[in-house]
């Protein structure tokens, strides 16, 4: 294993990390106490998954970087997360739709990673698979509730879908890193997860009385390090304390 393995693990790990950071911004601000608690729980699970993958990526890289070095000391162009997860929280419907588009990917990815040739990744996946299944139950139920809700909530979900749908396809576009990771048995080929993903997302949208938009030109580049400006601001907030006090402990 080599560079492709590090990159492939960061693509998943960074996606989890950035989404966890986004979700924590709801802490204390969610529309109901139960949802505040739910998002904090989901964020904690996803952050735990990220920690495992970043730690493993650092071990394979062999350059002495641990999870903190990878999380706090890389700039945006070195992040490999999906563009989807760096999109702003918006209203609660936007956050829940973004979550569904992520969870529906995660719930296919983790069970496949249980069979990774890397035993550490397989161990992380064994836990994460159960968590992802619980998360998607939550996000799907909110997309249905808001899509098939009031005229106002329906319109908001249509707007969220319009904004987020172009980011839904990036996770399934294979490149040479993915092919190498798949050939080594580290990870499944991203495109292999698409049929199940499509089926799940389309079923939820149908139940939510939301139309399945036609396939756009999928926004891409996050997994190769090309990000929008949103990520820079997110990282600045996430990293500022660590960078200001590099060796602080408490």
């Amino acid at each position, binding site marked *: 294993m080599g560079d492709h393995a590090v990159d492939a693990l960061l693509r998943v790990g960074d996606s989890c990390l950035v989404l966890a950071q986004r979700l924590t911004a709801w802490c204390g601000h969610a529309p109901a106490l139960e949802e505040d*608690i*739910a998002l904090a729980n989901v964020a*904690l699970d996803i952050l735990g998954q990220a920690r495992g993958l970043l730690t493993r990526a650092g071990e394979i890289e062999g350059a002495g970087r641990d999870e903190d070095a990878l999380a706090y000391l890389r700039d945006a162009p070195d992040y490999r997360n999906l563009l989807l997860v760096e999109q702003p929280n918006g209203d609660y419907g936007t956050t829940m739709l973004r979550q569904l588009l992520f969870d529906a990917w995660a719930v296919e990815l983790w069970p496949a990673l249980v069979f990774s040739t890397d035993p550490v990744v397989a161990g992380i996946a064994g*836990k994460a698979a159960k968590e992802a299944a619980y998360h998607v139950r939550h996000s799907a139920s909110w997309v249905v509730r808001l899509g098939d809700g009031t005229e106002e909530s329906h319109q908001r979900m249509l707007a969220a879908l319009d904004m987020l749908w172009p980011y839904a396809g990036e996770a399934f576009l294979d490149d040479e890193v993915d092919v190498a990771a798949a050939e080594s048995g580290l990870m499944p080929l991203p495109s292999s997860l698409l049929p199940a993903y499509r089926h799940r997302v389309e079923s939820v949208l149908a139940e939510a009385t939301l139309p399945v938009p036609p396939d756009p030109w999928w926004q891409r580049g996050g997994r190769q390090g090309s990000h929008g400006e949103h990520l820079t601001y997110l990282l600045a907030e996430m990293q500022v304390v660590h960078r200001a006090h590099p060796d602080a402990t408490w």
Partner: protein
Amino acid sequence: MVTVQDAWDLLADVPDPELPTVSVVDLGIARDVHYDGDRLVVTITPTYSGCPAMREIEHDVKARLAERFADVEVRTVLSPPWTTDWITDAGRAKLAGSGIAPPGARMLPLLVQGRPEMCPHCGSTAVEELAGFGSTACKALWRCTTCREPFDYVKAH
């Protein structure tokens, strides 16, 4: 020499930081204890990936065992993944006794949270989910429609 069984006895007194009525043994978090030479090695496993209590559990386990063991190492392993099936019968009884419904059987697909068998307050089986997430990663919030009391439920996982 202090034995592995002595270590288990001490661990049975280490409460879970978030569910202090049960121990790390009751919950199935402490998985294995053995000697590696003169060193006692304890294996623990997290309940959820993001369980914020793992560090504290590791610290508490070490501190408790240090009372009788000179050289203790605590290892954290992820695999096989923790499941609520590992909560002991004694642990289930303690949870119920403190008003927390123990996990029901896991259903197929494995990924469903199951449901409480009964209200831990009055024993009624007429219960419904209020929220899928609760005050800790392992719990959901349910309520009894007979006595009207809400209660925590340890999700089947």
